[in-house]
């Protein structure tokens, strides 16, 4: 159970970008896991060269990832969204980005597994007889902090509220004097910036290769949909539900069933609540 909760916190961290970009902006950015892996490699490079903590690297590189995200959205907007061709062609665009990033990482770093070493990677604490590994505890806490930060940003700041508004009614937002494209650029940038930290968390937990992103595509979108499109709190709850389900299944029924049951929960939840757990 505890392992599942910790896993859920980490899953929330990697899913927040999708929740923001897909859930709120309705942009099917399936390249998001590739940006997460890019964050992992950035953390690896800084850890390998300078011994920098991966999470610190993830934090320091968020402005860079924000800029990258803003650039990608501008290209997407100019090429597809402005022309009303965003649905299928936009999907192909993000598929293309995903593969280009994978191949670029392979050509740059090779296909050897990359890991990082931190002061806490091999340590664990015992809480009431339950051993808790720091390599899961730290990502979980960072994931919760990221969720809280994004939640506050969306609810308490002008730009955050504008992002919420652009997801609901772009025309009304325009009438209020705000530029929806600019707001979406900011939102997309924030979503990609979250990938910088998420990637750093991922490589703290497990080794990565450029194609590791494929292991996360399904989980990220499942968590976003289960939590309710655009619900940041829902993303955390859904991530914990999937994490706990995976852990309990692995413990009591065999790990082979863990993913099948997790996605079974998604289907069941959607049958009962099509908008997701916290969707409106």
């Amino acid at each position, binding site marked *: 159970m505890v*392992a*599942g909760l*910790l*896993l859920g916190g*980490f*899953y929330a961290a990697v899913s927040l970008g999708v929740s923001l970009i897909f859930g709120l902006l309705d942009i099917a950015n399936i390249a998001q896991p590739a940006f997460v892996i890019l964050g992992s490699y950035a953390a690896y490079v800084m850890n390998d060269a300078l011994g920098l903590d991966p999470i610190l690297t993830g934090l320091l590189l968020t402005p860079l990832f924000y800029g990258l995200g803003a650039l990608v959205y501008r290209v997407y907007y100019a090429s597809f969204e402005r022309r009303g061709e965003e649905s299928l062609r936009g999907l192909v665009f993000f598929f293309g980005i995903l593969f280009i990033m994978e191949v670029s990482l392979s050509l740059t*770093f*090779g296909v*050897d*597994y*990359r*890991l*990082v*070493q931190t002061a806490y*990677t*091999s340590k*664990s604490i015992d809480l009431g007889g339950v*051993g808790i*590994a720091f*390599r*899961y505890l730290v990502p979980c806490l960072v994931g919760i902090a990221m969720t809280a930060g994004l939640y506050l940003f969306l609810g308490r700041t002008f730009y955050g509220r504008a992002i919420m508004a652009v997801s609901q009614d772009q025309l009304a937002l325009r009438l209020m004097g705000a530029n929806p494209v600019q707001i979406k650029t900011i939102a997309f940038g924030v979503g990609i910036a979250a990938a910088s930290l998420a990637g750093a968390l991922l490589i703290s*937990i*497990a*080794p*990565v290769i450029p194609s*590791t992103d494929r*292991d996360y595509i399904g989980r990220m979108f499942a968590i976003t949909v289960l939590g309710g499109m655009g619900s940041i709190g829902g993303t955390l709850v859904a991530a914990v539900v999937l*994490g706990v389900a*995976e*852990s*309990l299944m*692995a*413990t009591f029924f*065999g*790990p*082979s069933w*863990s*993913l099948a049951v997790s996605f079974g929960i998604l289907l069941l939840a959607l049958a009962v609540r099509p908008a997701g757990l916290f969707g409106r």
Partner: protein
Amino acid sequence: MERKLTVIGMFGLANNEKYQYPNYFQIQPAGPDPQTSTAIGFFELAARQNPKPQTVAIVGADAEYPQNALVGARELIKKFGLKTVYDKTYPPSTVDYTPIVRTIKATNPDIVFVASYPPDSVGMLRAAHEVGLQPKILGGGMVGLMFTTVMTSMGPLLNGIVNYDFWAPEPPFLAMPGIKEFLKEYQARAEKAGVDPLGYYLPPYSYAVGQVLAQAIEATKGFDQQKIADHIRATEFNTVVGKIKFGKNGEWARGRTLMVQYQKIQGPGIDQFRGPGKKVVLYPDDLKSGNIIYPYSAAKN
């Protein structure tokens, strides 16, 4: 197969078991019974220990190699009269191995055989340390532990693990003709190319593929696929990994899958892995370079 080409495979376990393609050859020294090759040394070593292990847990990924290795392990468990207390597989995309390892620990097995790919090997090993899993022997078929990036990252966590391998910088292997020259050239180029800096796992065998092909082409004086295949089947080759004679299924006529134990590893330094003593060969007997530290807890500390 449709064009009757000669194919030399690189490290695919039991690839030709179903096809039985006569022009297929496998450079991995799995031997005539590839499915049990990964596990045979592990279980033979276990059977020789005192007290002799009675119970076993086996676990592996839902993927081709681990499944083949587990099939072989189950066969050997019957042969050696062990009692299985845990036998499960997991999806390759598993992120957290802690619940799996906790469940294994709860079954209190004497030995644990793991058939995994690199990310799972790392996850399993870390989880075993975090949970405090301490069977008498741990390891078996964990791919990736022999990669330099993994060895240097895992460091002392590897101590005590008994795992399959194909090459180790131990005296019997360093004495093979041409290997030192090959590694010197490889390591100089690897640094620039950004690939595995030591290259002890796949590269010697990749080079051996080239040696086998070159010798076969020179001997048959051409590129006739069938003549090359016939020559490879009938000839013993001298390579940097020793003499190679192919047998049935295109596998090595005599298997040479090693069982090594990681011993006395200190810190993450790469240089300690360059020479003998850190990856001690326990099996087969004719290539043995040291003794097993048993049980696992004695080598771990």
